[in-house]
């Protein structure tokens, strides 16, 4: 198998998922709306004091993204399971990991778009001052969602095919994501506060390490998960 053939499969799957999503729109709109709703509710929990809101902003944002994102992962396999499309997908020749990589890319784009909306809402609702080190913040957001989507896409391949998918996916996923959430929240919080202790870069390195380890592990293990 050449790299070009693999890439052809990956992009075909990603494109297919994104087209399905774009034509229905209902999925994206409701998931993004849920993310913003979550932020409003966090606002009630921590507000209305402006400083308290700013202190809680990083944590609230990441939790809103986590809760909304988890709904997207199961969806990406559920559309395959309806009318047995997954079985046919597995009939095609080629490496199995390309299916995972394709879904990973479409989920990454899906969650990034949702993140853009949730972050925009968060900046307004939580009265966030955008720091001068905003490129670092962008890197943190990106690495954070890569970690989230890597394991989310992987675990959803199992959870979406069980009896209790709604509860099982978060139950498996959330404890595994503790390092991602801690690192992403701490780095975001530090950067929003001006990174006085210079701790953000250590957290970003942890995020990067986590992403690489679990991306490689998921690519290798996916075959064992999808074939049964």
């Amino acid at each position: 198998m050449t790299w070009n053939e693999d890439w052809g499969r990956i992009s075909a799957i990603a494109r297919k998922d994104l087209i399905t999503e774009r034509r229905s729109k209902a999925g994206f709109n409701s998931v993004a709306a849920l993310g913003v709703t979550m932020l409003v509710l966090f606002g009630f929990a921590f507000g209305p004091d402006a400083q308290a809101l700013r202190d809680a902003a990083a944590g609230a944002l990441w939790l809103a993204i986590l809760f909304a994102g988890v709904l997207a992962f199961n969806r990406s396999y559920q559309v395959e399971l309806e009318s047995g499309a997954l079985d046919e997908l597995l009939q095609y020749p080629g490496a199995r990991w390309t299916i995972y990589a394709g879904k990973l890319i479409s989920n990454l784009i899906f969650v990034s778009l949702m993140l853009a909306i949730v972050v925009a809402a968060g900046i307004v609702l939580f009265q966030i001052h955008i720091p001068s080190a905003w490129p670092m913040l962008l890197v943190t957001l990106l690495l954070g969602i890569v970690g989230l989507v890597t394991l989310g896409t992987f675990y959803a391949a199992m959870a979406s095919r069980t009896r209790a998918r709604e509860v099982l996916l978060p139950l498996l996923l959330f404890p595994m994501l503790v390092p991602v959430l801690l690192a992403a929240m701490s780095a975001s919080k530090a950067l929003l506060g001006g990174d006085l202790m210079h701790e953000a870069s250590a957290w970003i390195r942890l995020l990067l390490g986590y992403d690489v380890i679990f991306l490689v592990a998921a690519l290798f293990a996916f075959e064992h998960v999808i074939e049964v």
Partner: protein
Amino acid sequence: MVVPRPGAWRWFGVFAFAFLIFTQTLAILTSPPDRDMGDLEKILYVHVPAAWITFLSFFVVLAFSARYLWKGREKDDLLAAAAAEVGATFNGLTLLLGMIWGRPAWGVWWTWDARLTSTLVLFLIFVGYLALREFVDDAQRRAQWSAVVGALGAINVPIVYMSVRWWRTLHQIQSNPNTMDPAYVLGLRANAFAFLFIMIYFIHQRYVIASLQRATEHAAEAVALGGQQE
């Protein structure tokens, strides 16, 4: 599916429990009260071995999960599951005993320190593992999936620990025989072995039960298909 016979294991179980009673008695009677904590120190002999056994059990889960993915034998899957259940039990016990210790020693039931928090996260990871096993009916799928989830969970343990440690730390630095008064070392070591025997016995017993369940399932399948029972 061959169902193991009890045989010598029954005596091993009796020995393991008798040894545990002996080492506990030994440790409690021989160890002097701690300078700061007094007799509170005696919980050391259950809390610390329980924590060690927790980590050891999850290492066993990783080993059998990896071997299952490699060789695909049902036996390895059942052993990994048995070790996960025993590990989760000891994990819960570690947390509870730690709280009972923490309340008088630190004045709080819980604190968000690195080792406490990562032990709790570990517990949650393996609760997820056991829930997955519960919710998947197909035996091969259950084995394959839980092997992957078990292996990924085990990989995550050091990362979780490191991240929580950076986040906050308060737990006392790990003791080792050099920093510990010799009066406590013997009791701790003896109890670690006692807990190890109990762990082996529990994993084996849990494995026997799982094998019996699988054997009944196979038999029921054979009857349903109209074939002969083996």
